[in-house]
């Protein structure tokens, strides 16, 4: 059989088509010839004759090559004369895409700026929205109010609620639909596979009603179950129900062993029962109504009656509270404090979130200004093209539509990239959030807000992108081509506006940079604070001894002594000890006086003292420094007559500013019968409330002397990787008490790291934003100066023709640009000086006028400004005067 492809290729040698297109044509034609040839053979034509007949049309058509290449050529993208809107749009899009390909830098700049502005705003706003704006997952959650006691005279903002308060408030209030009280203990859950530690809540039976929740299964606690010595029943949390019982609906009546006590399951909580936070099981609080104060240990939540304000409710509760002053109840010192629930649990985040929102708004503003400037630059270079289009008959509407399509396309590209980036940013922020965030907060990118950002930025792009179209359509066609370029320039005042925009952009970027510089410096300072202990190579974990099993204090002391001895014997352990509150481990307050203190006046503040129960070996394990005296040993606390304590520097300074504390005596202030404790040692302060926290007085007490609380944190110091101690420690614990779960296993460095998350998060975010702002401001300067140069091409040409050297032109253009930079810097410094004092709280002692930060930022902004100016200035200096004049 003839080689048809070769024949076709030979015949069509002159056909020059792009890429694979040509060989496809050859293939297809060869196949056609083969089909024809075979058909001829089948009808009995001899081979040679069949080949001749098949090829004949190729030879008989001299213009085939031309016909084929013309047919294969894509038609020019002309809109059909009477096409519909859709094909018009497609046509516009095709032109716009071609434009983007022709000016990739410009398109990337605009889309990139949109993306940056949108991403930052969407991510930060979504975080803010999830934290503060989105309603909580409870019915009418804005009416839910946190209840607590406050005692300014004790230097305590939140004291907790006592049982007498509970009954007084609940019975005598008239402004709430309901009030519920709770304690949030941890439970050891046993007899259900390996012992585990779960968070639980002891709640009054009003909790379901106050939160507005409906049980999935079963019933609420009965009134008699919520009284002392009532039956032990439990409401199972939804996640625990799934985990332990795989969602079995026959779970009612089964027994849950919590802290070695059996509880009968009477109901299953719904999925949205996410309050009290992380509680996996509810049991009745059963408060004692004996008029005695057993401590301020309760939390409360109330549902306001419709239309009642927090202030009205506060006044109502205060009245009830004050009317009930019994001996020993301290109701003249404490008073109810009411806080909307979200503020109570998220108050800390509010300042930082707001500061970040401002930063983001500034970046968005800068992005808009920049896009405007860039679109103007672009517009001026397009003026001629637009004028030609108008001249050859394009209608005003048609031109506007074309330009709208182009900017719209950029906005869509930038918007999509922005939303994707924003989602990544949100993930990054959420990963920085601490574990202690309430679980009822759900983070999601707020699409409505992202859409808002896209609209804002796209609107600014459209507004300025349309400028040449509006200009051109006003132009008389007859004179359009003639004067197009000049007609499309702006008036002096319009250019002035542009300059003001750029100056404010530089100023904002500079102020933002200074703020972030200060925050970064503060962060650096915080991380270099002496923690007062040696955090490296330390592992801590928590234990919670059940009261039923460890009822006697000797049992508790013996347990810890046995455990610690076992741990010390394990390979790799350098030191072991336990404490009720290791650094960052929470606060347990007490009031102390020292022997010989002058008596306190009735309204004087007694500073709250951190009380820490410790075992021997604790100070070595955590690495605290003894300043004077001695540490506890195994005999301290054995004698009931001679009680001892250690204090920290702050406590020593407060009570004995000029004398050695060793041998001095202290006791609880509020109990006149309390025994005196002798101070045997003074410790260097440890940063108990975080590296950026304040120093408070502290008293350390040997465990046998005060074997309560039962839950201590065990601290292990290792020779190398502390995490390697987890498994051996668990084994040792299991050999002593297999029912006891070990929880909260962390290294100390990890905890320190986490304690700084808020500071790290906002310092980091601020840093990123200010860099973005700087880049945007640089691009803005570049855009505006480029624009100015393009407007002045003619003038520069004349100057050069009259003898100005390129160096003079360069200097002239640079001067113009640097004036803007200087003005922006001055404005930014003024803003920064005023605004930085607002940050003072967050600066950890770094001066809001730190000269190093200011100098570095001014230099950086100056350098970026110079660079952004230099590019268009050099372009101006390189102008050929003849060409420049010809642009006329």
């Amino acid at each position: 059989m003839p080689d048809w492809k070769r024949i076709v290729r030979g015949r069509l040698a002159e056909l020059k088509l792009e890429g694979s297109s040509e060989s496809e044509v050859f293939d297809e034609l060869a196949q056609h010839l083969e089909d024809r040839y075979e058909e001829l053979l089948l009808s009995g034509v001899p081979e040679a004759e069949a080949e001749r007949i098949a090829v004949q049309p190729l030879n008989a058509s001299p213009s085939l090559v031309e016909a084929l290449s013309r047919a294969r050529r894509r038609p020019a993208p002309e809109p059909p004369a009477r096409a519909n809107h859709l094909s018009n749009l497609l046509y516009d899009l095709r032109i716009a895409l071609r434009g983007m390909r022709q000016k990739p830098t410009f398109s990337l700049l605009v889309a990139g700026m949109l993306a940056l502005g949108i991403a930052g705003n969407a991510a930060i706003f979504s975080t803010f929205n999830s934290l503060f704006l989105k309603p909580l997952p409870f019915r009418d959650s804005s009416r839910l109010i946190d209840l607590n006691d406050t005692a300014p005279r004790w230097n305590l903002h939140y004291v907790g609620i006592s049982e007498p308060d509970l009954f007084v408030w609940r019975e005598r209030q008239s402004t709430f639909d309901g009030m519920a009280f709770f304690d949030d203990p941890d439970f050891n859950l046993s007899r259900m596979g390996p012992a585990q530690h779960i968070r639980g809540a002891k709640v009054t039976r009003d909790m379901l009603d106050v939160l507005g929740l409906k049980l999935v299964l079963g019933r609420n606690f009965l009134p008699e179950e919520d009284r002392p010595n009532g039956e032990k029943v439990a409401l199972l949390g939804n996640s625990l129900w799934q985990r332990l019982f795989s969602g079995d609906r026959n779970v009612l009546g089964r027994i849950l062993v919590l802290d070695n006590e059996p509880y009968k399951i009477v109901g299953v909580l719904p999925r949205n029962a996410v309050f009290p936070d992380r509680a996996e099981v509810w049991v009745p609080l059963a408060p004692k109504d004996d008029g005695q104060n057993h401590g301020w240990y309760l939390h409360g939540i109330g549902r306001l009656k419709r239309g009642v304000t927090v202030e009205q409710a506060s006044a109502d509760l205060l009245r009830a509270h004050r009317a009930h002053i019994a001996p020993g109840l301290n109701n003249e010192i404490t008073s109810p404090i009411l806080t909307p629930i979200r503020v109570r649990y998220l108050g800390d985040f509010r300042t930082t979130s707001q500061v970040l929102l401002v930063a983001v708004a500034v970046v968005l503003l800068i992005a808009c200004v920049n896009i405007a400037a860039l679109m103007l630059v672009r517009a001026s270079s397009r003026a001629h093209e637009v004028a030609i289009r108008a001249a050859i008959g394009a209608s005003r509407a048609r031109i506007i539509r074309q330009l709208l399509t182009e900017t719209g396309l950029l906005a869509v590209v930038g918007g999509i990239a922005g939303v994707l980036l924003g989602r990544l940013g949100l993930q990054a922020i959420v990963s920085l959030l601490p574990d202690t965030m309430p679980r009822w907060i759900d983070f999601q990118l707020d699409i409505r807000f992202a859409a808002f950002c896209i609209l804002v930025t796209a609107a600014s792009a459209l507004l300025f992108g349309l400028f040449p179209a509006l200009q051109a359509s006003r132009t008389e066609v007859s004179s359009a081509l003639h004067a197009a370029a000049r007609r499309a320039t702006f008036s002096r005042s319009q250019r002035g506006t542009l300059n003001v925009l750029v100056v404010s952009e530089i100023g904002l970027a500079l102020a933002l940079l200074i703020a972030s510089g200060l925050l970064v410096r503060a962060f650096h300072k915080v991380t270099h604070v002496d923690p007062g202990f040696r955090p490296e190579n330390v592992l801590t974990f928590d234990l919670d001894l059940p009261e039923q099993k460890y009822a006697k204090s000797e049992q508790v002391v013996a347990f810890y002594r046995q455990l610690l001895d076992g741990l010390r014997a394990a390979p790799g352990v350098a030191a072991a000890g336990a404490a009720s509150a290791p650094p960052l481990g929470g606060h347990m307050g007490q009031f102390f006086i020292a022997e010989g203190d002058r008596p306190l006046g009735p309204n004087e503040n007694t500073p709250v003292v951190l009380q820490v129960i410790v075992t021997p070996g604790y100070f070595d394990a955590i690495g605290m420094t003894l300043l004077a005296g001695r540490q506890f040993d195994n005999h301290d606390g054995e004698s009931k007559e001679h009680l001892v304590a250690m204090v920290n520097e702050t406590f020593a300074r407060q009570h004995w500013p000029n004398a050695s504390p060793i041998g001095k005596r202290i006791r609880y202030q509020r109990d006149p019968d309390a025994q005196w404790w002798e101070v045997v040692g003074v410790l260097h302060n440890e940063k108990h409330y975080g590296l950026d926290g304040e120093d408070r007085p502290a008293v350390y007490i040997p465990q046998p002397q005060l074997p309560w609380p039962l839950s201590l944190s065990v601290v292990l110091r290792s020779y190398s990787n502390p995490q390697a101690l987890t498994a051996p420690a668990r084994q040792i614990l299991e050999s002593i008490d297999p029912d006891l779960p070990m929880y909260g296993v962390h290294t100390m460095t990890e905890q320190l790291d986490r304690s700084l998350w808020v500071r790290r998060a906002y310092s980091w975010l601020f840093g990123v934003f200010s860099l973005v702002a700087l880049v945007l401001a640089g691009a803005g300067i570049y855009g505006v100066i480029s624009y100015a140069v393009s407007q002045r091409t003619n003038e520069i040409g004349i100057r050069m023709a009259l003898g100005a050297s390129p160096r003079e032109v360069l200097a002239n253009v640079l001067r113009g640009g640097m004036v803007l930079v200087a003005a922006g810097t001055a404005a930014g410094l003024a803003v920064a000086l005023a605004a930085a004092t607002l940050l003072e709280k967050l600066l950890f002692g770094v001066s809001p006028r730190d000269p190093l930060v200011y100098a570095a930022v001014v230099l950086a902004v100056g350098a970026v400004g110079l660079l952004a100016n230099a590019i268009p200035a050099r372009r101006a200096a390189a102008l050929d005067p003849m060409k420049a004049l010809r642009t006329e």
Partner: protein
Amino acid sequence: MPIRPLDRELKKGSAELLVLSLVEDRARHGYEISKLIESRSEGALKFNVASLYPLVYRLEARGWIQGRWVEKAGQRRRRYYRLTAEGRKVLAAQRQGWRVFAEAVRRIAGVDYA
């Protein structure tokens, strides 16, 4: 009735309509299209390799038909063409135009094409 004296221009104008009609219901390859034109016109209309492909490529470039290489077991690959949505509109318009034209010719010349 044979229609050999058909004017060249007339043939060219009708050619598009013929190809579009043939790929209206199913995709066909080039040789198939040429054979169908020949057989359905009972030999009155003929397209050879040189006259068919410029036409097919032109229709494809306009987006009225779309070609796709198809490989069937035991056969060489062939390019099949099918009507696009755009082509469907054009075909409808051309049919209508042709109907009007044929009707006019019939009225004037008393020749019955349809």
